[in-house]
């Protein structure tokens, strides 16, 4: 099998097992919806400052990815299928496959949660295009880094608490810039003057993918 | 230089002296252990 088909095989395996159980998707969605309800209820929809709205949205998305993304490798480790992956594929194929899985998961969750968020907080985003590009490039960077980190965490103890601890400092730039850019997209004036924020997110995504692929083989191979 | 600053200076010098003394002591101890 050539390179691409192996990557697709990795993705396919995960998509199928996910389709059977829908565990990761459901738990991520459930967490997001729950925290969304809590936030919306406690604030009573009275949040009008776009920066605060942006921050709330990204906090919810962020914490849900802290919970759901590590599962990419933890499941493999626990079920003993890590060695199968090691034997059949090159590390970079596993990395890209897993990254695409995480990206899909993150995209689906974001696509469902963001409209809900806007509805609950009575926001009609004036510049949806900007927001979508922000969310997409942030998601790529997030999934690249989180895939690498989940491989690290799968080999450690205390995974649930270790993953956010490791992830947050590294993902801070994405978080900060995403909140900033989303805040700008919720303001009435045109956010495209701030396109350097999008460039930043794109650069981070590229560095995340490149760095992740380079470092992944050290984590994966023993 | 008033007395407040003098106090600060003296305290700081004491701390520094203590640090250096500790490092020298550590050096001696390490030498002993590594020779074994």
């Amino acid at each position, binding site marked *: 099998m050539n390179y691409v088909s192996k990557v697709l095989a990795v993705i396919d395996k995960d998509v199928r097992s996910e389709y059977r159980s829908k565990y990761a998707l459901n738990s991520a969605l459930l967490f997001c919806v729950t925290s969304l309800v809590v936030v919306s209820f406690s604030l009573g929809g009275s949040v009008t400052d776009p920066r605060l709205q942006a921050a709330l949205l990204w906090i919810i998305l962020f914490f849900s990815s802290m919970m759901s993304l590590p599962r990419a490798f933890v499941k493999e480790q626990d079920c003993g299928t890590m060695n199968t992956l090691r034997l059949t594929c090159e590390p970079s194929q596993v990395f890209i496959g897993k990254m695409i899985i995480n990206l899909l998961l993150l995209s689906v969750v974001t696509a469902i949660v963001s409209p809900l968020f806007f509805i609950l907080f009575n926001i009609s985003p004036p510049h949806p295009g900007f927001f979508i590009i922000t969310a997409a490039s942030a998601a790529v960077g997030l999934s690249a*880094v989180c895939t*690498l*980190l989940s491989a*690290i965490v799968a*080999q*450690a*103890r*205390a995974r649930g608490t*270790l993953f956010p*601890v*490791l992830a*947050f*400092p*590294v*993902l*801070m*730039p994405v978080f*900060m*810039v995403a909140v*900033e850019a989303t805040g700008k997209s919720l303001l009435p004036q045109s956010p495209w003057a701030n396109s*350097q*924020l999008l460039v*930043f997110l794109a*650069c*981070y995504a590229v*560095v*995340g993918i490149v*760095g*992740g692929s380079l*470092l992944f083989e*050290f*984590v994966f191979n*023993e | *230089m008033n007395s407040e*600053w003098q106090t*600060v*200076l003296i305290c*700081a*010098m004491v701390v*520094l*002296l203590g*640090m*250096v003394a500790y*490092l*020298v002591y*550590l*050096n001696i101890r*390490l030498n002993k*252990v*590594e020779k074994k």
Partner: protein
Amino acid sequence: MPYIIGTFIFTIMSGVLCGAIWFTPPAKVLGETARVIYFHVPVAWISALAFSMSLWQSVQYLRTNNPEHDIRAEVSARLGLWFCVLATITGAVFAKAAWNMYWNWDPREVSITILLLVYMAYFGLRSAVSDPETRMRLAAVYDILASFAMPFLFFVVPRIYSSLHPDTVINSRGSNKILDHRMLLVFFAALIGFTLTYFWIYVLSIRVERLVRAREESDE
């Protein structure tokens, strides 16, 4: 021989202390509080230096798999963390004295918070892995990953936040031009003195760590 170096370091550092308190004039705008510059900046610089050294050693470890590099990476990370804590505390004290608030989330403060979190996460990772070889490998990877992310923070934060918030640290430094040659002298002496002190502690700590690990291995 170490006593000569030790004496030299002691002389420089005590000179710096006396100089900081006695010899240099107070700054134009900030007054006596500016004296912290002689301590705060060198400590922050050493923290960054330690982190770079740790990064280099982590890369070397992944290349050669020699545990010596991991010892150096861990030791420099540990020292870097301590100096980072010192830098944060001195910075906060200075902020309170100069602008009446301990913490303002301006770019410098954000960066140093992230640096602290990265260091602490590094040690969290180290303590969470039981197998020594895996521990060294994963720690090295995390070190490198974190330093991929750092430049984004250090170069982006000023660009974003300058549009919205005033930068308290840089503004004050701009109006507080260190032109007085006495201040420059003490400042550079402080930089040199602190760096030498750091390397002294670093060399000793490596020897200690080597012994600790040897003892742990013989215990098993």
